[in-house]
């Protein structure tokens, strides 16, 4: 196990989930790097804090509150009941009370109250209203970057107050005054400049795809293609760039290719839309989200495809499913028989149900699987045509591919799923302590099924979850290769060649 300069939380029994005692200030020193001018300017944000930023921050707050009903309503109606206090994985893992969703939201609410409500103007002390000061800003920077925008809190709040919306707004305000977060803004810059989050230029992509084709030919004897920029293909596949890069992501990418091959559906990737992720959401910026989404529209039009399918990535699927029509629609130039966009799991599941592909579970012999529901899929999007399809469809595909499947504790799956600990733009090394501690509720539930049910692997359907787990599993004495792509399992099980 990696020697960590911080305590690794002890894992208990997920059925008991004790609520920790408060440790005020436990994570007061945790913060990501501040974005430099070079990361800020390409996004149209000021390079640094300058004279009068307090006023500009408050003005921007006013404009956001008038543009987002969620924000306006959530600022006013929280009753401080505390039902959300024990629901955040970062609070459970770090014990820092400012990581309780209501306390996090109050960092924002205290400023809103001061400037936008009669009570906060007349009697700030009574209602906990605060002036916008550097101290407040520092607190914002620390704690709004300790929220993975997973929305678990919103499930249990009697009014559906979604702290993710508040974190997004806070980050947008910080960007607008020159206090951005390096990790997210640098990545968005790469999307605009090179086309994807990892900054892989087109030649590197082509190279990778060729290599993967050779690997698959060696492995299976079948010439499975990985087409890119093919005009007139039926399907445009948009997938997180991690799929071109690292394991287990890339094993999933080969799975998608095999499914398309076996189903005989023509498809293509695009160098222009070589990234499904949309970090515009993490920084709460509508313009950036729109701009990043428009690349997909342009790629689809240029290539003349009929359908768009997204690969395995949680927040990418939320933006795609919930926002793409808004941000980059209407999609009337695509084939109306298919929803826009589709998820690769919807596509594969449909083929399995129609017997359009054949799977042989022995391809995954010896594996006992569990699945990690990714937050943005579980609580922010859907698959299929029924509510909750995002839970049943991935399970159906996994169960069709593996000999044995078990679910983790019911309080930790489906819409109650616990974040991997690295979502929301926090997948960066300087936040390692937060990431490791925030993962503890998930690790606890995983350990439970490993110990009691012999689980060997955990499937994930999100690039961030996969990257986070491969990094933090060793801290909890698990093998980093325990985490697998859902389509990696399909890839191992699919029968190629005799489907014609």
């Amino acid at each position, binding site marked *: 196990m990696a020697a960590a300069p911080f305590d690794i939380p002890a894992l208990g029994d997920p059925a008991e989930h004790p*609520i920790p005692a*408060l440790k005020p200030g436990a994570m007061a020193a945790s913060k990501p790097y501040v974005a430099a001018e070079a990361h800020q300017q390409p996004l149209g944000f000021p390079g640094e804090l300058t004279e009068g930023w307090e006023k500009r921050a408050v003005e921007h707050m006013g404009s956001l509150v*008038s*543009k*987002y*009903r*969620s924000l*306006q*309503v*959530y600022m*006013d*109606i*929280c*009753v*401080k*009941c*505390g*039902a*959300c*206090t*024990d*629901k955040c994985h970062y609070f459970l893992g770090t014990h820092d*009370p400012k990581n*309780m969703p209501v*306390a996090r939201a*109050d960092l924002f609410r205290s400023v809103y109250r001061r400037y936008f*409500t*009669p*009570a906060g103007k007349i009697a700030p002390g*009574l209602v*906990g209203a605060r002036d916008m000061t550097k101290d407040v800003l520092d607190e914002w920077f620390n704690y709004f970057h300790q929220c993975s925008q997973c929305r678990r809190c919103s*499930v*249990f*709040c*009697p*009014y*559906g*107050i979604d702290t993710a*919306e508040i974190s997004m707004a806070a980050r947008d305000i910080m960007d607008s005054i020159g206090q951005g977060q390096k990790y997210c803004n640098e990545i968005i810059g790469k999307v605009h400049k090179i086309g994807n989050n990892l900054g892989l230029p087109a030649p590197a992509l082509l190279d990778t795809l060729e290599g993967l084709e050779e690997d698959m030919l060696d492995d299976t004897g079948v010439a499975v293609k990985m087409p890119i920029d093919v005009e007139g293909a039926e399907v445009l596949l948009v997938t997180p760039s991690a799929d071109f890069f690292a394991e287990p992501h890339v094993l999933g990418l080969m799975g998608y290719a095999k499914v398309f091959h076996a189903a005989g559906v023509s498809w293509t990737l695009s160098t222009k839309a070589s990234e499904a992720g949309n970090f515009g959401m993490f920084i709460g910026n*509508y313009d950036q989200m729109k701009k990043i989404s428009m690349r997909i529209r342009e790629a689809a039009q240029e290539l003349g495809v009929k359908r768009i399918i997204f690969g395995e990535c949680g927040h990418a699927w939320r933006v795609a*499913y*919930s*926002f793409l*029509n*808004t941000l980059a*629609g*209407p999609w009337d130039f695509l084939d109306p028989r298919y*929803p*826009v*966009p589709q998820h690769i799991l919807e596509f594969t599941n449909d083929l399995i149900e129609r017997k359009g592909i054949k799977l042989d579970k022995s391809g995954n012999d010896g594996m006992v699987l569990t699945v990690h529901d990714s937050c943005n899929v*579980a*609580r*922010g*999007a*859907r698959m299929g045509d*029924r*509510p*909750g399809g*995002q839970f049943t469809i991935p399970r159906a595909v996994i169960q069709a591919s593996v000999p044995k499947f078990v679910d983790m504790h019911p309080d930790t799956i489906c*819409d109650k799923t616990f974040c991997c600990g690295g979502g929301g733009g926090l997948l960066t090394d300087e936040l390692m302590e937060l990431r490791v501690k925030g993962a503890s509720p998930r690790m606890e539930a995983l350990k439970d099924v490993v110990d009691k049910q012999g689980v060997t692997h955990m499937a994930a359907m999100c690039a961030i979850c996969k990257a986070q787990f491969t990094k933090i599993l060793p801290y909890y004495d698990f093998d980093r290769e325990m985490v697998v792509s859902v389509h990696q399992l399909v890839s191992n099980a699919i029968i190629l060649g005799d489907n014609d």
Partner: protein
Amino acid sequence: MTIFFAILFSVSTLVFAAGLAMKIAQYARTPAPLKIPTTPAPLTKGGVALRLGREALLFESLFRGNKPLWLFAFVFHLGLAVVLIRHARYFETQVGPLVALVQPLAQPAGLAMVAGLALLLVRRLVVERVRYVTGPSDILMLVLLLGIGVSGMLMKCVVHTDIVAVKAFFTGLMGFELRPLPADPLLGLHLLLVCLLMIIFPFSKLLHAPGLFFSPTRNQTDNPREVRHLAPWAARLEEKG
């Protein structure tokens, strides 16, 4: 006392109604630019109405989130609802069927309301996490409601007030006619606190009552792929290109 309360009651009713209307109008006017229902979410408007109905009447999410709190809050709100319905009799000349129905429940409902509030207050002070997020206004609000409940119960069960005269006062007030209010200190306190509550309502967290119905995570239909959802300000961005 009669004139003082006549004025105070009129003013606070006005503040309550106008303030609430303004807030509701503000919520209704503020666009929701993106579809953000917490999923799994209903696919139809009827489904959304059911979801909101379950939240408003049964506190469904709170039930999933925290059972003791659900119980305290439910007991309080149920008691409050019955008591409010019962109070209608002080404003109507003819007692309606609903009021008649809850009539015998008035006393237990009043007790439930006070007990629920007391439990909520104790919880707020005893549970460390909840104490951490509690501000002075949260405590004052509970104390205010407790004051209303306790003074009301005292009048009902211990020191009875001239209820016929109270009713005459309010029915008169509604017809812009001044009829004397009994000079009873307990009644005075009760009415004073009620007026205070009405005045702070539109400026406080009590807005959770109308706010629930405007919460996008709860009131949106899950159909973003089928229907394009575009807020007016976002549509203007689009025209600019």
